[in-house]
Each structure stands twice: as structure tokens, then as C-alpha cells.
């Protein structure tokens, strides 16, 4: 008997393929799948987050507050405006901010369980944001540039509307499902990094454009009902444009990156005012004379 090995023709056990084309095809498909899954996760998380009762938000922030204080860490929810430890010497700034808050909350007609807890941050950051549990943060760096009370009311009303429309819960809900999804892919560390640092979770509360537009709309209506006109509300957005042009302040503030372009916002609120027949002119209410001293 005769035995032999014949050399096999090439290309039967291996596929003749261009690795680069294969790489591009696979990466692009994977990217498309990832984006689709990401959008779905974010959407469903936002939906679920928005369905949480406001009481659940409060429960979360109170727990975080307690845990952080027990661990002797600085809680972001501690020390809100109007609840100073020494009630005899209430800070005039806090008093003023609280009275403005009361006015704005009444004008916004926030539904019953929603409570705004305002925090003033003596920090030269040009920022303001709203997060879970109705906690809203106003920074000195932004307040000191406000030209009048109407702009302050617009700012407050905008942030409080985010709370009233449950945007923080939606945003964080979407963030949690996204992080959980990415931890499936990248390991649990990705999830922990993102969500076990409370400060970063709060600061990373990001709102979509449509949320910002909704907040602007509700805010403008509130400003109109407080002052009888909407004059001065757009000063807030003019201020953003001015700050941006001056190029002096921290551009990475989340306020800038997530909010729609100032010009569009100004145009939109003008249209909204015109459509509702709200007065675009009217007496501007100045800030209290000592406002800047209070800040410093």
C-alpha cells in the first residue's frame, strides 16, 4: 500500500479576508449596537427615574446625607439656606434668597410633595444646578454677575422647574441604567467609579435640550406672574453670552455644556412671551443694594 500527504490547497481552512476591512465592519457594527443599546438604556432609565415619587428622591438624599455625616464627610445636602444653626443671626443673603425662593415656588405652582431646598455656595464658580430631592445649588460666581432681581427670579425658576418636572430623577435614572449597562461590558469597576462617588453623581446630572427648553418655558411663565412682565428674564441668557465672550470664567461648567445656545433661548422666550401676550417691557426690579456685599 502507498501512503502520502498531499499539500492541501490554501484557503480551505482559512478565510481569505482583509483584516482591516473586517476590523472596520465589526467595529462599526459593534458601535451601532452599542449606541442603540445605550439609547435604549438611557431612555428606559429616564422613564423609570421620572416615575419615582418625589418622596423616593427625598428618601435617597436624606440617606446619603446621614451616611456621609456619619462618615464625617462633607455632605452636599447639608447646610441649606434658611436653616442655619444659629437662627438668631440669620444671614441677610440667605433671608433674601429664601424669600425669593418662596415667591418663585408660589409662582411656579409646584405640585404638592415637591420641596425646594436651596444651597448657596460661596464659590467663585459660574454655575447653578438642580439635583435629586429638590436640592438646588447657586454659586457666588454666578450670583455676583446677575444684573437684576428679574434675572435672579428667572435663574431660580429655571432650576426649580427642573425639580418640578422631575428632570434630576430622570437624568440620574438614565445615568444609572447606562452605568449598569457599561459595567456589564467593562466590569463592575466602571459602575462603582461613577456611582459610589456621590459628588460626581450629583455634578454629572445632565439635562437634555428638551428638558432645558421645558424649564425655560415654565420659568418664563413664573417670572411673568411675579412681575407682570418678562422684561429682564432674558438678561440671564445675555449674561451667559457675555461671560462666554469675556472668556474669563470656567468654560467647562456643566451649565454651559448642557444648556442650549443662549441666542436660541432668548429668541424662544421672546416668541413664548409674544404668543402669550406677556409684556416684554416693564419696570426692572433691582437687586437689594447690599447684594454684592452680602456675597462677599
Amino acid at each position: 500500500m502507498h501512503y502520502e500527504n498531499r499539500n492541501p490547497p490554501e484557503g480551505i481552512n482559512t478565510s481569505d479576508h482583509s483584516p482591516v476591512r473586517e476590523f472596520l465592519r465589526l467595529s462599526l457594527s459593534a458601535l451601532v449596537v452599542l449606541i442603540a443599546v445605550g439609547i435604549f438604556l438611557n431612555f428606559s432609565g429616564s422613564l423609570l427615574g421620572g416615575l419615582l415619587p418625589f418622596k423616593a428622591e427625598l428618601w435617597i438624599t436624606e440617606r446619603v446625607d446621614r451616611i456621609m455625616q456619619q462618615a464625617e464627610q462633607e455632605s452636599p445636602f447639608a447646610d441649606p439656606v434658611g436653616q442655619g444653626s444659629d437662627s438668631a443671626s440669620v444671614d441677610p443673603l440667605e433671608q433674601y434668597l429664601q424669600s425669593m425662593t418662596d415667591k418663585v415656588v408660589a409662582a411656579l405652582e409646584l405640585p404638592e410633595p415637591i420641596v425646594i431646598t436651596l444651597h448657596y455656595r460661596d464659590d467663585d464658580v459660574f454655575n447653578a444646578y438642580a439635583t435629586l430631592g429638590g436640592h438646588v445649588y447657586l454659586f457666588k460666581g454666578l450670583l455676583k454677575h446677575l444684573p437684576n432681581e428679574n434675572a435672579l427670579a428667572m435663574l431660580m425658576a429655571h432650576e426649580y422647574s427642573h425639580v418640578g418636572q422631575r428632570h434630576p430623577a430622570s437624568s440620574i435614572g438614565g445615568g444609572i441604567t447606562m452605568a449598569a449597562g457599561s459595567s456589564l461590558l467593562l466590569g463592575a469597576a466602571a459602575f462603582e467609579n461613577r456611582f459610589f462617588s456621590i459628588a460626581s453623581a450629583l455634578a454629572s446630572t445632565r439635562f437634555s435640550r428638551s428638558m432645558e427648553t421645558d424649564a425655560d418655558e415654565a420659568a418664563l411663565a413664573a417670572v411673568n406672574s411675579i412681575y407682570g412682565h418678562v422684561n429682564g428674564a432674558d438678561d440671564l441668557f445675555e449674561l451667559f453670552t457675555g461671560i462666554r465672550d469675556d472668556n474669563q470664567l470656567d468654560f467647562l461648567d456643566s451649565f454651559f455644556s448642557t444648556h442650549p445656545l443662549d441666542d436660541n433661548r432668548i429668541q424662544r422666550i421672546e416668541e413664548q412671551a409674544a404668543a402669550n401676550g406677556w409684556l416684554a417691557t416693564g419696570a426692572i426690579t433691582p437687586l437689594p443694594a447690599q447684594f454684592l456685599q452680602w456675597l462677599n
Partner: protein
Amino acid sequence: MTFNLISFAVLLLIGFGFGQASERRHYRSIKKREEQLAGLAAIASKHPPVDRQYQQYLVCGNVVVASDYFKSFLASLVNILGGRVKSFESLLDRGRREALLRLKEQALQQQATAVFNVKYETVRVGGRVTTIEVLAYGTALVPQSN
């Protein structure tokens, strides 16, 4: 994050460059030696010829081949999306052919005229980048000189 992305891209490029080059080099060597060793038959059959008496020895050819970062990344994408893992087909093909060549080299040293009952085993070894061991073994038949 940026650092991770950069190191990922660098690993991918290194893997692609060196991996493709070494694969081409390996295939050249495999084809050359396959022709040189074509005279020695390695057969899967369990029934050796009975025309005469043979000494029988166990011969093994063993090789460990690493894929590269690029191939492994492609394979992990296929793991998600499904389909043929083309990037590993050549890896396993090289592994089997190299293992058989080594088996034949060993058999030739023993003056074997054929190897029967040839079988393969494949094992995955090593960590981050897929590395395989292929073992080919069989029974070498050495004609008894009497």
C-alpha cells in the same frame, strides 16, 4: 480614559503590524517545510500496513501560537455580533500544520516511513491575548531491519 484609549490603539496597531508580519513569515516557513517533508506520510488511519514488521514509537509535535491584540479584539467583536471568527482560523490552521510538521520531524529522526493514527489536541493557554497550544501525536512506523 484618554490614556486607556491611546494604549488600546497602540496595542491594536502593534498587534496588527507585528501579527500580520509574523503570520506571513510563519506561513512561508510552513509551506517550505511541508514540501520538504511531503515524502513522510502522516495518516489518521488506525490500521497500519501489515506487509512487514515495524517498530512502533509514539511521536508528538507540539506548538504554542499566540494571536495578537488585533486578532483577539476582532474575535471579541465576533463574540458579540456572531459570525465566523476569521481572525482565529489562520491561527488554528498554523498551529495544526506546525504541530504536524514537528511530529514529522521527530518521526524522521527515528527513520520512520510513516506515522499512523495521527490525532490533534488543542488547548487554550495564557491570559489576555488568546494563545493556543496544538499537540499532534501519532504512531511512527520504523521498518524493522532483519
